[in-house]
């Protein structure tokens, strides 16, 4: 029988790896990811989980070990955050280039300097072009579910790409919520054993990670693109199967809340979505025409779903928890992507960029109300604005 448990986001991520029957875990501790790998090492030590736990001497090696283990036919898991993810950067492109479906939990955290252990999305957004599937969870249940989803999508023979599920540092990594943990048999049904077509095997020698000179490099890159594009259909298929087996339904790419008739729509990702949903509900009661879109799958980017959801709105407020320094008005990367998605549309809403919660600053309901005022005050003739919400005077 599925059982109820009150667990943290980190534990949910660890449970996802455990229920996936992970073979090799390689990790290096970093706040706020640490307890996730502590749980896994405890389960391996107690014999509750039959896996190799490799305590790597750096995140760079942790990712390397996962890639090499995956290339050998093992299901792998790692978790990191912030500087650790930045240190892995080189290996992230290699993971997707070698088509090794490593799964990684990110406990989203700011990048130094100044040093901050607190939450924003700068770390994972900096890796958005690395060829990884990227999903962002809002709560602890979704953290667990996304962990399983990452294995299912990444390991699909039509995809074979690494996948990261991102959960907000402390807001999710350290928050305890009531979740349903499934039966192992349900997970086994959802997630077949990992059996890649090619692996390092002396009975059938292959070379992985060769030099690709200008005669070939582009074709390798294009194959990666095709895999990422194929992932769109696989993400949908996996969510349909997920609902059938576990009875929980998610919109694969974007969650819509009061969007159909809304003049004003917020677009969010991650745990801040709950605060926005709360305020949208209040504003609705007050008669405001407002809705919310929460992006769950960021890579591949759901541009078609977004167009469909927001084209009818007057103004869309895109919430960024990270910054693309030097982009148009140094806006956030999510803003850029949404604007690009709207470019082909004949009828398109005005857009506003709302940068908030940088370096762990709290986002309160009153700040969300302030965001709504910004949306309401958009002038039809004015160019877009980038507002920093919650900044010191």
């Amino acid at each position: 029988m599925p059982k109820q448990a009150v667990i943290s986001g980190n534990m949910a991520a660890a449970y996802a790896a455990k229920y996936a029957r992970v073979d090799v875990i390689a990790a290096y501790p970093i706040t706020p990811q640490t307890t996730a790998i502590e749980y896994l090492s405890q389960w391996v030590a107690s014999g509750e989980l039959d896996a190799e736990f490799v305590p790597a001497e750096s995140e760079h090696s942790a990712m390397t070990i996962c890639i090499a283990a995956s290339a050998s036919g093992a299901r792998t898991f790692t978790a990191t955050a912030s500087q650790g993810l930045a240190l892995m950067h080189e290996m992230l492109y290699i993971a997707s280039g070698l088509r090794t479906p490593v799964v990684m939990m990110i406990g989203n955290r700011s990048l130094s300097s100044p040093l901050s252990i607190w939450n924003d999305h700068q770390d994972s957004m900096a890796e958005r072009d690395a060829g990884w599937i990227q999903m962002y969870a809002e709560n602890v249940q979704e953290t667990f579910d996304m962990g399983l989803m990452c294995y299912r999508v990444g390991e699909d023979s039509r995809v074979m790409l690494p996948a990261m599920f991102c959960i907000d540092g402390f807001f999710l990594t350290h928050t305890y919520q009531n979740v349903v943990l499934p039966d192992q048999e349900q997970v086994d049904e959802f997630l077949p054993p990992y059996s890649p077509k090619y692996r390092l095997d002396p009975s059938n020698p292959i070379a992985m990670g060769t030099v690709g000179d200008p005669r070939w490099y582009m074709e390798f890159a294009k194959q990666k693109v095709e895999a990422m594009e194929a992932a769109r259909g696989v993400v949908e298929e996996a969510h349909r199967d997920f609902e059938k087996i576990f009875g929980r339904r998610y919109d694969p790419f974007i969650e819509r809340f009061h969007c159909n008739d809304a003049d004003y729509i917020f677009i969010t990702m991650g745990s801040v979505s709950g605060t926005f949903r709360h305020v949208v509900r209040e504003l609705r009661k007050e008669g405001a025409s407002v809705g919310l879109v929460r992006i769950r799958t960021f890579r591949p980017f759901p541009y078609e779903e977004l167009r469909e959801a927001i084209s009818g709105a007057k103004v869309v407020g895109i919430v960024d928890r990270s910054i693309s320094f030097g982009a148009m008005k140094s806006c956030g990367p999510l803003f850029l992507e949404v604007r690009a998605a709207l470019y082909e549309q004949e009828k398109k809403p005005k857009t506003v960029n709302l940068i908030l919660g940088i370096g762990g600053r709290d986002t309160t309901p009153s700040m969300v109300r302030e965001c709504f005022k910004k949306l309401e005050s958009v002038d039809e003739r004015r160019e877009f604005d980038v507002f920093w919400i919650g900044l010191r005077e």
Partner: protein
Amino acid sequence: MSIKLSELPAEDYFLPGHRACAGCGAAIAIRLILKVAGPNTIVASATGCIEVISSLYPENAWGVPWIHTAFENAAATASGVEAAYKVLRRKGKISHDKVNFLAIAGDGGTADIGIQALSGMAERGHNVKYICYDNEAYMNTGIQRSSSTPYGAWTTTSPPGKAIPIGKREVKKDVARIMVAHGIPYVATASIGYPLDLMRKVKTALEIEGPAYIHVHTPCPTGWRFESNKTIEVARLAVQTGMWVLYEVKQGRLRITYKLSKLKPVEEYLRTQGRFSHLTDDDIAKIQEDVRKRFEEFVEGYRQLGVSVEA
């Protein structure tokens, strides 16, 4: 344990057709090493000469499974393969009883950028045999100094000039000694000038459970500036002059595997190579003195690391 020429398999697993320079010492080393390791072997290569010359898609020179990920992480790559095989074997998902896991990296990929991953692999005790082919500079990028470049050598980033006439001012980093300090079961130095000694050491390393480190001196005609038919001669002179000492530390016991009663003058080695052509007689005298001192204190130095010495 010894190894006889007649026992060596005719088969090669580092295959002809690769793109190494004529007379490449590293290619000789890898061919010999894989002959000993045989077909039940998986190789993890660091970025560098051996990787680039052997793996230009769609061709490759490897007769065994081979993986390259990046420059600084051959040890971590091999660690990952080894960990996967361990657990997959335990879970009954693969049936191979004995697979050799080799990590292969140059001196830059070992002594400089890869030393952290190497240290991690050794400390965690992975059953990986790490081979450093030491051509004493970044040869793949065009002869830049590494921490394994010897004192006084010209490279493109340690050029002798008016202000710095010596070339490389620093002494060669002793990675084998660093690995001995890790307390792993087997550490050896080797040279392509002494192939049977090299191959015996590879065999020994493969037979011992746990991490092993073999540091192979592999002269590079292109970077050291000597004729490509002199590679073996230069390699032997390095040993015979005491510039490169052949030894092994097996389970904490040191054995010098090529004993010299008398050292040849270092000048005989240095003068074979254009990279030392700027050295003055005084410079050579200093190098000679350093070699003599190191040779005399060699055994005592290892005693200080807690290693016992075989007669």
